[in-house]
């Protein structure tokens, strides 16, 4: 956009990717599963907003389609599926976690710093308007990965997986102004299917063990 200076455009995109990181921390600190799902939906909304902003500032039309798909798939469909799973499981909060919340938060803080330091050498070479978003995207992937490891319930692990995917999408948008549309479509389909399968798998886990604690999967059972 010619009427807006590139500096301001960068700041707006940075602002909306910072909101993504903020919701990440909220998900890590949250115990109630349904609130985690709501926060994931909110994060996806910020992701769609970031993608739409990038599309607007760069004039890359096909990112609009990806942003619209994000809203449909990650803000509406997947949260509904997850809410259904949570309702059926009749679990409202996660009480078992391997690492308690304050320690998790500290580790996540360290992960964010690592992400920023890793991308530090790359940033000066980039002339894209989304330079800082790359670091945030990497931080979100790392936090998602860490949450997947540190939580024991299948539902939170699924949410963490989706958070990781959000980070990857942000990274793709930030680094290359979006992948080709056919790739985006493929990824969206994959994520949707993965979420559905994980939802069914969580239900089966509940039927088999009366719990969605994934540590039970290591036990041998007839």
């Amino acid at each position: 956009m010619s009427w807006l200076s590139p500096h301001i455009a960068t700041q707006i995109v940075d602002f909306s990717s910072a909101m993504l990181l903020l919701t990440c921390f909220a998900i890590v600190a949250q115990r109630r599963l349904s609130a985690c799902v709501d926060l994931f939906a909110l994060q996806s909304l910020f992701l769609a907003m970031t993608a739409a902003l990038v599309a607007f500032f760069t004039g890359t039309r096909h990112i609009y389609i990806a942003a619209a798909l994000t809203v449909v798939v990650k803000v509406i469909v997947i949260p509904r599926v997850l809410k259904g799973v949570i309702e059926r499981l009749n679990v409202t909060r996660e009480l078992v976690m391997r690492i308690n919340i304050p320690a998790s938060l500290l580790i996540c803080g360290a992960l964010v710093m690592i992400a920023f330091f890793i991308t530090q050498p790359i940033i000066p070479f980039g002339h894209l308007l989304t330079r800082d978003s790359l670091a945030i995207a990497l931080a979100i992937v790392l936090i998602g990965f860490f949450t997947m490891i540190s939580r024991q319930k299948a539902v939170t692990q699924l949410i963490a997986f989706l958070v990781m995917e959000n980070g990857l999408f942000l990274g793709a948008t930030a680094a290359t102004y979006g992948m080709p549309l056919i790739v985006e479509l493929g990824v969206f389909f994959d994520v949707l299917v993965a979420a559905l399968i994980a939802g069914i798998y969580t239900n089966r886990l509940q039927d088999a063990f009366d719990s969605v604690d994934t540590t039970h999967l290591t036990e041998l059972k007839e």
Partner: protein
Amino acid sequence: MITDQSIFQAIALTLAQAIVLISVAPAIVGLIRKVKARLQCRQGAGIFQPYADLRKLFRKQPVVSTTASWIFTATPYIVFASTLTAGLLVPVFASQMPLNFAGNILAFVYLLALGTFFLILAGLDAGSSFGGMGSSRESIVASLTEPAMIMAIFAIALAAGSTNLSTIVHKTALLEGIVTDPSSHVMALAALFIVTLAETGRVPVDNPATHLELTMIHEAMVLEYSGRYLAVMEWASGIKLLVFLTLIANVFVPWGIATRVTPVALSIGLAVYVVKVAGLAVLIGTIECMFAKLRLFRVPDLLGVAFILALLGLLFFYILRG
């Protein structure tokens, strides 16, 4: 060069700021209550009800426990004075306050901490079991909010290159010589907002509307107060809330504040200030309706989030500018 005119102007500005803080505070408390009532489908008392409450309390005869020492009767005035002094260090409607030579962020934080310290002492002083319990809880919360609060303001102070609140607000308002960085700005803002909820005893941490021993923190400490002492205490807690809202409004979104001392700029600044603070009050009222109070042992989790966010806000500055 200090002239008679500039001294007169400085005194007038400081007095005006004190009057604005003292007079607007009860209305903000009333506004939050009104928003909560409306969202709960109640009519609710008017926005100006707290003024009537204060007048009623000032007329009543105070009752003081026979075991209480001088600390008990001195505390309301100390809390009121320290909170108001802290408030005078924060630019309210003009970006350069005459009192800014007197202190920076650290003075601000520890003036508030002085009030909290005496509040804790007074809670213990009367010898009631609830007061001691409230004091113990308040000291947990206060010790956890302090680092988050200092770091959140430091994140902004680094960008402005000064720990003086007037300078920070002035430079940010004029976008003069500083590059604000959205990520650290957002992180620090979120941290300071959580700290505000905790420090002023709003819902996720404390419930200002109950007198239930399981939930109260601030209310437990002021339980023994009555009459004019209670009025001063309530007024001081209203001012503390307003000072925090002012801090959020003017340090993070200072645009609209008067950067020069002219009547037009000052009146625009005042109008913008009232709108911003009222908006924040509506936001707090909405949040109080949406969330339940946290269990006391969950409060460190929430304040842990605030601390980490503030820390990240601080570090982003070095990493992104480094």
